[in-house]
């Protein structure tokens, strides 16, 4: 695991966006060669999405040959409801970039057969050649996507009933009215995300601090499902200072000490504007 600690939310978001940008540019996507990206929703990734949109508007990053797979979607919420994850992704990301609609995959929470919808999603990921980089967040209860405490660490895409904690955390998006918050969701499984070639988890602000502690300093435990990524060969956790509040000073110092090396992953920052001659020079990112 690489733990990237930035001072503020803005800096953490920017580091994450730069990392994603470099990964896509290095991959050199093109016709028939798509970069598959797993995407989260919620307030944590908003800053990262804003930076990615900025890179696109500057001409540095194109999503024309990027395929995306979102982690989850509420069950029973109309797709055009302002709080659906379809709306979130459209308003915060897709409408600002050049991604093609046919390359976007979000679970349909209104499908007639929900489990079939989940199985089809897994098939689509397989058909796309698996996920290059799965970006995710973490809930205050340590969940990844909607894999609530107790979820199997080898689970696949399925229907989940939401934990009370999650419903309470989401209430603020539904006028504070608990009765309006959806109680079920379709979600990728822990196993689904573990299958990705690389995983990046964004964790910011103090209310996620305890979950981060449980995820990386304690053992692998299905009560804190993000801990499963301790067993993934290539994971990056990007966080701000506040999210490290529950970690040992020793842990924080160790990873801050590695920032000189880890920053080589985002500096230099590459752009799709560069000519082929320049990009053929060796710029393989550092990797341990």
């Amino acid at each position: 695991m690489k733990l990237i600690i930035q001072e503020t939310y803005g800096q953490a978001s920017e580091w994450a966006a730069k990392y994603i940008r470099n990964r896509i540019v290095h991959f050199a996507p093109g016709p028939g060669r798509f970069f598959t990206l797993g995407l989260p929703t919620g307030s944590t990734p908003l800053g990262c999405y804003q930076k990615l949109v900025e890179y696109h508007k500057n001409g540095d990053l194109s999503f024309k040959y990027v395929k995306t797979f979102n982690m989850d979607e509420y069950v029973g919420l109309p797709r055009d409801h302002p709080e659906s994850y379809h709306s979130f992704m459209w308003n915060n990301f897709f409408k600002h970039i050049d991604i093609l609609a046919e390359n976007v995959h979000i679970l349909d929470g209104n499908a007639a057969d929900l489990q079939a919808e989940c199985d089809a999603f897994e098939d689509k990921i397989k058909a796309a050649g698996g996920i290059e980089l799965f970006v995710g967040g973490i809930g205050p209860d340590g969940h990844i996507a909607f894999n609530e405490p107790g979820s199997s660490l080898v689970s696949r895409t399925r229907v989940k009933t939401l934990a009370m904690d999650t419903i309470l955390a989401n209430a603020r998006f539904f006028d504070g009215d608990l009765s309006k918050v959806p109680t079920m969701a379709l979600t990728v499984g822990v196993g689904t995300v573990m299958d990705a070639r690389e995983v990046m988890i964004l964790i910011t602000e103090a209310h996620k601090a305890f979950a981060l502690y449980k995820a990386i300093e304690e053992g692998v435990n299905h009560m804190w499902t993000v801990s499963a990524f301790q067993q993934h060969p290539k994971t990056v956790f990007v966080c701000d200072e506040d999210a490290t509040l529950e970690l040992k000073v020793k842990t924080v110092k160790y990873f801050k000490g590695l920032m000189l090396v880890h920053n080589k992953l985002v500096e230099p920052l590459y752009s799709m504007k560069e000519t082929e001659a320049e990009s053929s020079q060796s710029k393989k990112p550092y990797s341990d």
Partner: protein
Amino acid sequence: MPSNKSVSDAPIAQFTNCRILRDRRLQREDLWVREGKILNPEKLFFDEKGSADIQLDCKGSIIAPGFIDVQINGGFGVDFSMATDDFKSGIDLVSQKILSHGVTSFCPTLVTSPPSVYHQVLPQISVRNGGAHGAGILGAHLEGPFISKEKKGAHPEHCIRTFEAGAFQDLLATYGSLDCVRIVTLAPEIKRSSEVIRELTKRGICVSLGHSVANLSQAEEAVQHGATFITHLFNAMLPFHHRDPGIVGLLTSDKIPAGRRVFYGMISDGIHTNPAALRIAHRAHPTGKAIPVLGPAVGLAAKLPRRVCLPSSGLVLVTDAIAGMGLAPGRHTLGQQVVEIDGLNTYIAGTKTLSGSVATMDACVRHFLEATGCSVETALEAASLHPAQLLGIEHKKGTLDYDSDADFLMLNDSLYVQATYIAGEEVWRQDVLGM
């Protein structure tokens, strides 16, 4: 990229780099248009997996719904109250010329005239969509002849009538036909007006109060029977009096039937109404529309009305433009009268009685913005959303909501019209030379 749109193969235009008036505010959003209607891009993306065929950079312009003028008596030498041989080409000329003022739909208005004029002119007015040929016609506005002699303004006294004898039948005989009539202005103090108002309202015709000496209770009764508009508030009616506010009192009357709203027209040309009066009207008018107050209703809060009143949601900007609008100063006709234009002022020749205006709709919007200090959104809505709501057509005109008719304007920050679009097609553009 292959076209994989499942709903339609018609070209999709995406207007980018603009601020659009939507949900009551100016927002940095793109405007999508297909087949003459505003398109929902999210639906296009997820349902049809579609994308834009053409992208147009609006260079930071404001995009607002096209203006709707519900009171315009003519312009460019054309007088709608005059039964001429080339009446049709006259109305075509005006409808084409007002595109440059940002008007995409209008109600040609006839002032008090003899029955012969109505019988000849009305059959020549037809409701029709706008386009490159000109602004759309929503129907005629008949201002008179059932008005008060004391508040005739520029209307010819000898043509003023009453319907005391036969009520609605008298009205029908006078006009000949109500087929393309959208609005009728009358004075509610005329006996049997209640019956007439009810009959007109039943036929979907908007009844407006004006050129009247009605007191507040007569006005309120008229509203209860169906009247929903006040013709050029303050002009040609009794002035506000603190013991009998007259028609002006409808702004704050508590006798408006629930769920209904009274709209009021204002000519904000800087002449017809003092800016202070404009501001009083703008600030005084609550809607009666319930906006729920958030939070639990406990204690005293439970006893108070739980709604917030939006200011000025009934204000409708009108030009009341006459034949001389768009022409040089001098003498012109207005129905049976001769009027004299001097700058922005128009008077009955030889008098100081105001008679219509030569203001253009976009100038009225700008003047309203400046005089009241209101937001750009409010000024734009007063010329688009509110007239559409008055006529009950806000589901397709007057907004930039999805599935609405794509009648819109590109304006600069000072609200000068740079381009006019009807059904998604550009029908007028500001020439670089400013002509």
